[in-house]
């Protein structure tokens, strides 16, 4: 090996295997239950802990297929969204296969988990990540501090992402959100978050009408009332932030619009 240090990925894989082996009932990691088995390791959905009727799968490539889509067949651009499919058990032969499988189920999470425990995980805050963006994402550097805070609450809380953000607006401005108790740290805003931040930056540019609403707020309210009347929410994919029915967009509206709607009008 040409490295000065031992590769961090190798240290992480060993530390994780030890951590798993040290527990008889297995360890929770995101939505996974990871256990030492006779020869190798066994992974399954945490909610399938006691079940016997699971589809037996083997090897890292099967982990990739599990991670790619939801139960309903939808694309999963963010692997720590709490929508991991159920109904399977995965056998992997050894520590290396375990690491490879985990890197499909929760990419890079293993090494981040290890580095955080060792107190060596570098954190990149929003302002730095935003400052690096180019092309259509260049505008995210203009997002206000409050905008970053609201976006993080809408985008990163446990209801929508199981990672624990370690990053803040900048080094001196931590996030004001419930980071969650998950095992997996988030050292830097992810690409989906940057895309969401772009949407929120566009919202921040809008003017308000006499009743204090922006044009997109009005459009969303109209679309949602109509949808509710019709009996179904307009469909939007996880990363489709331009649509009123997008979960994270709705969460943002719940945080920033609903309190204003509930406020009694001043005379």
């Amino acid at each position, binding site marked *: 090996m*040409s490295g*000065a240090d031992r590769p*961090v990925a190798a240290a992480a894989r060993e530390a994780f295997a030890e951590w798993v082996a040290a527990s008889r009932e297995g360890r929770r990691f995101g939505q996974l239950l990871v256990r030492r088995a006779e020869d190798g390791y066994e992974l399954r959905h945490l909610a399938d802990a006691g079940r016997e009727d699971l589809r037996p799968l083997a090897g890292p490539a099967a982990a990739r297929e599990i991670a*790619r889509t939801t139960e309903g067949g939808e694309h999963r651009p963010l692997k720590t969204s709490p929508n991991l499919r159920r109904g399977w058990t995965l056998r992997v032969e050894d520590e290396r296969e375990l690491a490879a499988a985990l890197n499909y189920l929760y990419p*890079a999470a293993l090494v981040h988990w290890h580095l955080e425990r060792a107190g060596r995980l570098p954190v990149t805050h929003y302002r730095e990540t935003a400052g*690096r963006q*180019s092309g259509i994402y260049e505008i995210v550097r203009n997002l206000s501090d409050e905008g970053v805070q609201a976006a993080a609450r809408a985008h990163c809380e446990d209801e929508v992402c199981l990672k624990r953000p370690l990053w803040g607006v900048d080094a001196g401005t931590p996030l004001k959100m419930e980071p969650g108790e998950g095992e997996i740290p988030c050292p830097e805003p*992810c*690409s989906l978050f940057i895309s969401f931040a772009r949407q929120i930056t566009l919202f921040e540019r809008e003017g308000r009408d006499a009743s204090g609403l922006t044009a997109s707020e009005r459009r969303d309210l109209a679309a949602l009332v109509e949808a509710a009347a019709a009996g179904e929410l307009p469909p939007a994919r996880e990363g489709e932030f331009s649509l009123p029915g997008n979960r994270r967009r709705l969460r943002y509206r719940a945080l920033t619009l609903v309190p204003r709607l509930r406020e009694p009008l001043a005379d």
Partner: protein
Amino acid sequence: MKALVIVGHGSHLNADSSLPVYEHAERIRASGEYDEVAECFWKEEPSMRHVLDTVEAGEVYVVPAFISEGYFTQQVIPRELGLEGEVTHRPDGKTVYYAGPLGTFELMADVILERAADLTAGHDLSGGRRALVLLGHGTDRNQNSSGVIYLNAGRIRERGVYDLVEVGFLDQEPEIVDVVENIPAGHVVVIPVFVAEGWHTKETIPEDLELTGEVTRRPDKTIYYGAPVGTHPAMADLIAARARELALVRG
């Protein structure tokens, strides 16, 4: 130990974008040429920012699954991976070698021809001239994007496998619809020179060309249209060859 890292664009919306990258990685992994083969993406996980930390090898070859040189290969990928050029020595001891995009590589013409052969296999192409049309995205901003399509058309023309080899674009002249309409051939094989399936290859192109499936018979010609070249299994060989060539710069 040596590792191969394939960089894909990925998508926040569709699973089609990353699929070929996973599949090519799996093929190369099975060949045993590398101790590790990892995938990473601009819009999916692992991100380019984190992938190198997941790799144990000290010698890392990075191949972008992109057709042409441009914004991604020159700006986004080097920035996100923290690369300094063709060779980067990282503080953690890793040496990272960065390859150019796939489209200009000699083998690309072979992959396109293989894709075309698969598409027309089992069909009788006798009677009438046979034309191959390379379909590119094209854009006013990036000369390289169309350049790579012309380059491959030229290379394929030299081989003399098709009577005619033409190019057509979505976003610039000559437009694909006009090219396919006017080409003087009884059999027209249209190959999208894209890395993955997407909205254009699945929806807009078949619609614009009024296709009824993989094979569309019209009074004057038969049109063959299928998955983009980037999804073909032979693309894995091209990626591996690209990395092998890069290994030569190590000296």
